[in-house]
């Protein structure tokens, strides 16, 4: 799908917006269901291997001393990271009144929900005795024994669950007016479905008044929350004494990385979607271009963070830190770190070129690279640092086995399946907000190839 000639948006009307968005939810064809079935198959695969792992014990994985955290925690951090850009686009950019967010924020927010749901699975997958995971949550019991709130993992539990609740509520509040719209146009069981979901919304002035206020405050809460959540995730590692992790830079560094990977994932989802669901005139090159700019910026910040990390290691003059750092890049698994630098710092530089930013194919490829790079980063930080810790006699590098790989693949299937189903039954672009900012949409249509004019 090369940069297709965009349909003109100049006289885009409210109804056009509605129709385009509603067309997405038209009853699905065979292709769609095949795709969902494929995802479901991946889920089943991962599920089967997880079942086996629970039954036989974690021994079926490649885990061992000293890398007791590896792929699963990597996946956890990766998915949480993916989640964050959603909240960023929907909440932070909302507070900044950024215009281009209207078209992409619903998609990003949906992605957030399912990414968090996916991420939430991994700490449980990773447990030695997963059936006791609820011990992390305080509840009345006969031992009067509650979790230790000092532990970063307990922080995680609270942060992630709060995050899931908040972003779900945020999404559903934003959905209500659109669902009401769907209710009005649909018939049959869908009618009932939307009637219940829309809770009888009618868009009266008082409703809109409370809606705006609630929405604003939710955004206001989500913004510090998204920062805190990934800081907490980063403290899982920063509070450890393990060399290569024990660093105060981790919180900002992780948050930025999260936004970076998240925006990349938004692109990865959006580009095929807007092609296949034919919403090009709602999600225009202008929007993509802005997303690409965010990615470029965060990539630069990541490069800076890597530099800072290296500098701090050198500055401490701690032989253990220095050895771990050198092992990360020149040890047995140095190629992973090199690949991480390539994907996160070098390849995104292409986005400096306006043409690249307006070329969907290039954007797609770059976004894939960034996803890979960010996964590698987490893996290198976690498994790599643990592999070369304080006791040289205990050094050992980790190599995953089939179980971890398939469970990871299954998690992608799980994420995509949920997302695809969502797109069919709930509006994946926010009609309300697009109509609100329709002038900007028209403008975007007029300048649909903003940089071609120069050529």
């Amino acid at each position: 799908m090369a940069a297709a000639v965009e349909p003109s948006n100049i006289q885009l009307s409210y109804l056009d917006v509605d129709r385009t968005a509603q067309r997405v939810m038209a009853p699905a064809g065979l292709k769609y269901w095949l795709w969902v079935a494929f995802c479901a198959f991946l889920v089943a695969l991962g599920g089967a291997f997880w079942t086996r792992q629970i039954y036989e014990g974690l021994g079926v994985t490649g885990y061992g001393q000293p890398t007791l955290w590896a792929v699963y925690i990597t996946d956890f951090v990766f998915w949480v990271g993916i989640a964050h850009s959603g909240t960023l686009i929907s909440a932070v950019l909302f507070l900044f009144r950024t215009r281009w967010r209207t078209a992409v924020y619903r998609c990003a927010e949906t992605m957030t929900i399912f990414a968090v749901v996916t991420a939430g699975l991994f700490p449980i997958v990773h447990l030695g005795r997963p059936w006791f995971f609820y011990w992390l949550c305080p509840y009345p019991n006969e031992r009067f024994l509650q979790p230790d709130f000092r532990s970063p993992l307990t922080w995680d539990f609270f942060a992630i669950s709060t995050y899931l609740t908040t972003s779900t509520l945020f999404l559903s509040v934003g959905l209500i007016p659109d669902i009401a719209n769907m209710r009005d146009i649909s018939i049959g069981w869908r009618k009932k479905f939307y009637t219940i979901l829309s809770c009888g919304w009618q868009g009266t002035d008082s409703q809109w008044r409370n809606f705006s206020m609630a929405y604003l405050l939710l955004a206001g809460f989500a913004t510090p929350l998204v920062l805190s959540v990934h800081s907490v995730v980063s403290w899982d590692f920063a509070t450890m004494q393990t060399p290569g992790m024990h660093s105060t830079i981790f919180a900002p560094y992780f948050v930025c990385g999260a936004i970076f990977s998240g925006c990349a994932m938004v692109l990865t989802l959006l580009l095929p979607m807007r092609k296949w669901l034919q919403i090009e005139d709602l999600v225009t090159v202008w929007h993509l271009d802005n997303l690409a700019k965010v990615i470029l910026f965060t990539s630069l910040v990541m490069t800076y963070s890597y530099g800072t990390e290296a500098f701090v290691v050198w500055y401490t003059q701690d032989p253990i830190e220095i050895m771990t750092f050198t092992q990360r890049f020149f040890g047995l698994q140095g190629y992973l770190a090199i690949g991480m630098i390539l994907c996160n710092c070098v390849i995104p530089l292409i986005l400096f070129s306006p043409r690249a930013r307006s070329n969907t194919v290039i954007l797609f490829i770059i976004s894939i690279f960034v996803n890979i790079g960010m996964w590698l980063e987490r893996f290198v930080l976690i498994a790599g640092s643990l592999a070369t810790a304080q006791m040289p006699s205990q050094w050992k590098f980790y190599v995953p086995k089939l179980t971890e790989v398939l469970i990871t693949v299954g998690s992608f299937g799980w994420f995509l399946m949920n997302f695809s189903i969502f797109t069919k039954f709930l509006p994946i672009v926010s009609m309300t907000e697009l109509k609100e900012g329709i002038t900007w949409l028209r403008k975007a249509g007029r300048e649909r190839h903003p940089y071609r004019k120069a050529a």
Partner: protein
Amino acid sequence: MSDGLSRRSFIKLAATASAAAAIPGCEPAARKLIPYVVPDENLIPGVPTFYATTCAECSAGCGVVARVMEGRVIKLEGNPADPISQGAICARGQSALQGLYNPDRLAKPHRRGGDGKLTAIEWDDAAKLLNDQLAAAAKAGKDRVAFVGAAQGPALDKVTQAWAQAYNSSRVIFWEAFSDEPARAAAEACFGRPDLPIYRLDQAETIISFGADFVETWDSPVEYARQFAQFRMPKTRAGGLSIGHAAYVGPRLNATAAKCDEWVAANPGSEGAVAMAVLNVVVTQGWVSQAAGVDVAALKTLVADYDPEKISAQTGVSAATITKIAGWFGQATDGAVALAGGPDPQAHLAAFILNAVSGNLGKTMVFLDGAPARATSSLADVRAVIDAMRDGQVDVLVIAGGNPAYTMPPGDAFKDAANRVGLVVWAGEVPDESAELASLWLPTHHALESWRDSNPRAGVYGLGQPVMQPVFPSRPLHDILIESAHLGAGTAGQAIAYENAADAVSTAWQELQGKIGASATPKQFWDDARRHGGVFQAAKENTVKLAPAVLAQKSPVPGAAAPLTLWAFPHIFLYDGRGANKPWLQEIPDPITQVVWDSWAEVHPETAKQLGLVKDYEGARLFAGINMVEISTPSGPIELTVTISPLVKPGVIAVPYGQGHTSYGRYARGIGVNPFAFLPEGTRNLAVNARKIDKTHKLVTPLGKSDMMGRTIIEAMSLNDLAKGVEPDFGEEKIDQPYEMYPPFVYAGHKWGMTIDVNSCTGCSACIAACYAENNIQVVGKANVDLGRIMSWIRVERYIRDPEEIKEGPPVYIAPVLCQQCDHAPCEPVCPVFASSHTSEGLNAQIYNRCIGTRFCENNCPYKVRRFNWYAPEFIEPLNFQLNPDVTVRGAGVMEKCTFCIQRITTAEIDARTEDRKLIDGEIIPACAQACPARAISFGDINDPNSAMMKRRDDNHGRTYTMLPEFNALPAVTYLRDVYQEKGKA
């Protein structure tokens, strides 16, 4: 009858309890309670009983105490009353339990049909078959019955002899693969008596060992490890602070050499020449003591050919080195001792002469009156019997122990001979290679199930008593022999007075009482012996003189060494292969190479380069060798897996004995190679040529890097620094007490701590075996060790430096590492569910049933001493009989770690409270400290400044340090630095 019933009931209880133990939390304990009919008033269920007995794992004959609970022996501990072990025990001794509870033990007699298939038969049929054949053989003529077995102590050996005579035969061979024959021969030549002397290393100032690995396998390792530790203790001599000088002469730097000042890398088999060279220097320098009263002229002629310069080509040892160690030896004011190991007679001869001429007879090397006669047969006798078998002069061959088919060099001679014998009977526990030759298998009792006696040295009479009812319906070997004599051998057989082995032993002890003239009544004497595990007396020392004749007989100077020599050495755990069927011994890493579950070939990097092998120890998994070489031997080509190490002499391929079993149970079968199978008789080295083959086989080790990278893990300091009282400078800046954010936590009552003396630790790994036994630690096997899943709570950390490169300090650092029980434990605050928390007695507690397996704690542990259960542990019946009922068996998915043996601590505290008294210092001993032969580990109360443990810290305050202090974890374990003397001086 009540006995039988109670046994049945405890077996049931045992089974159910252990089955339940396998899944903590899910399964309630045994559902049925089966009472005794008549209770044994000495036995309280839930309270252990202790039986003193002797260890039969090697010829050292240490006394041990068996800890028995509900009729099951669950742990072996050293017998404090025994003068040899003095309460310590080695890894092999601990593992006797796994011989007792080995799942591969033969349960019923078997006979091999014509088609070679084995069928189980009843005891009576087996006995009948045996007796008929024996009777027939005895009728057929003299000496048509042969017995090949291991020495089992004087009384039982006498029974065996009697049995053979009853069957009109004298062909009885007591076979020991690594026998003391060479030493005895040398002693006979030098002093006219074939006794073994005893050594007092602790009273020497210099030790030179010519191939005697005295802290690993040589003679009596437990005893010598203890003596050596005292020998290495810094003590004031002639005004100044000093430690003993020790040198080890041999082609490989083993644990013994690692603890010595000097590793003299001599060519294989040239230890004797080196010894003569040392003697040469001693003589020429005029260090021969007048008191010795030897003919110096004769000495001079004897050693004339062994001038260090001239000989160094053959030995590969520089004259300077020889002069140096000779200097240590000759100039030692405080006594010196030379030890010799291995089969080379010249080494033993020279060592004895050295001790004699330096006037150390009766000081560091002592002959005792009434020393036991040789227990094993001479090579000549062995050969005679084998020849007789080959010539078809033997109709019935009884193989009972010693596993000759595996250990007899060269490879197949014994097998061929055995195949010409009419009936080969094998009696033993786990069917081994020798059993494969036999057509009748008889299951015998394990040493811990039967009566024995032992007489390792003059004045030490050990009594081995059964410590539990037999696990299998087996029978004691000597009951079988006595019965067969009684039933099959007619009047000659009836002559044997004993009813059974117990009878024989007790009779022997009545005789013994007469011999040593003990005043007690016979019953009293017998009871005391059973209570103390024997009778221990100080034997009178014998003054011997060096026979002048020995100085006349000159031995030929060895030729130049071959470019490439294969040299085999006894494995510290598997010894001559008898340990190979015990999972603990297979899984505990060899202290130097750290290889598990395999046999390896160590070669020097130079040799490796010549052979074109890749240098495989630069990666993160050091020493996990993968290259294979093929060596040519008289008995065909052999494939070896190479591990490249600077700790072996160039041009040498060092291979351990003990592996390469084709039988002998599931744990031993099909691992590595067996050097006995291709090494010629009477030597351990063989000139070979090797070529690299493009096959790979992975050696597995739990070890990562062997380079300490200048971190504060194991420290050594020079004697001078210690004398001056200055802290050694390791180039890192000193950490003074950092700023504490929170007020320190107060430990009101006890606060448990440990002091570990790196200087004493020899890496013998007895602590690891003890920990496996005490704490129900699972064995994970080779594949899982490779994945980094070894479960041992305490490990022997070992770091090496290339001996060529280092200026000062030891080439190998060895120390035990266990949970440091930190006050600021990094593992604790990261646990989300309080599974890891601190007790009010300063212990870092791991609560298994609260653990959900986040593994955060181990990630945050700087010492990496926690272990995670990747699978549910499996203890194959009857190995599960050994489980300690006081310790939970951890299930899959939980973290576990060293507890300082909390079960012992709580038991002692409960006793103290109920008896309304304070805890006595030394009342609580963790398993590791209890087992340690070198007494390197001491445990006690940090809050009690008078506890032995704290005293040890104070007395050695110059040497104390804690591991990785920069993490400010405040460990409760304090280490004492290793001490070395500068190469420059001394």
